C-alpha cells in the first residue's frame, strides 16, 4: 500500500475491543463467509474511488476477541493527508453500519447482541453515499 512514490500520506486506524471496566470479558464476532468479504470490498472500493486513493487495506477479524485485542485495521494511502485521513474515517463509518458482522458481547452480567447505534448511522449519513 505504501510502496508508491506518489503516496505522500498514509493514514491508518486500529479498532480494539473495549473492556468497559470489566463489564465485557469477550466479544464474539460472526460473519457470513464470502458475503462479508464482498461487502467489505465494496466499501473499500467506494473509498478508493471517492478519495482517489493510491491504495487501501481493510483487515477485519472475527471469532472470540478479548478486551484490548484489535478488531480491525484500516489503512489508506493518497498523495495528500486530507484524502488519506478522510478515507480512513469514511471506511470506518461505512464498516460500522454496513459491514456484515454480528457482535455478541459477553460479561459477568450475561451476554447481548451489539448492533449499529443511532450515532453510527449519523456518522455514516454525513458521507451521503451508498454502496
Amino acid at each position, binding site marked *: 500500500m505504501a510502496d508508491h512514490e506518489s503516496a505522500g500520506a498514509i493514514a491508518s486506524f486500529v*479498532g480494539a475491543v473495549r473492556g468497559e471496566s470489566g463489564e465485557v470479558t469477550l466479544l464474539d464476532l*460472526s460473519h457470513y463467509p464470502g*458475503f462479508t468479504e464482498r461487502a467489505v470490498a465494496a466499501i473499500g472500493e467506494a473509498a478508493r474511488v471517492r478519495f482517489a486513493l493510491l491504495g487501501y487495506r481493510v483487515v477485519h477479524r472475527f471469532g472470540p476477541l478479548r478486551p484490548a485485542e484489535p478488531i480491525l485495521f484500516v489503512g489508506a494511502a493518497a498523495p495528500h493527508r486530507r484524502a488519506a485521513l478522510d478515507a480512513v474515517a469514511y471506511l470506518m463509518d461505512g464498516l*460500522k453500519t454496513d459491514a456484515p458482522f*454480528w457482535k455478541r458481547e459477553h460479561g459477568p452480567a450475561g451476554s447481548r*447482541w451489539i*448492533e449499529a447505534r443511532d450515532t453510527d448511522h449519523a456518522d455514516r449519513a454525513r458521507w451521503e453515499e451508498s454502496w
Partner: protein
Amino acid sequence: MITILFFGRLSEAANTGRRTIPLPPGVADTAALRGWLGRDEPALAAALAEPAMGIAVNGALSRTNVILTGNEEVAFMAPVSGG
C-alpha cells in the same frame, strides 16, 4: 434442499445458525419461507418480522421477494455492526 442461514439475533431466535430442509410444500418465495419459518416459533417469527432484517439469496442481498426453487442458500440477517 434449501439451506437457511441465521445471523446475529436471528441465530439465537432460531436456536441455530443453519437449517437444511427440503423446500416446504406451498413455499415458493422468500416471503413465504419467512412466514413458514415462524409458523410455530413465536420468537423466530418476531425476529423475522423486524423491518431492519436483511435477506440474501445465494449470497446476493435482496430487498424484494425472490422466487425459490429448492436449491438456494437463503440468509436471514439481523442488523449488522462491523468495526
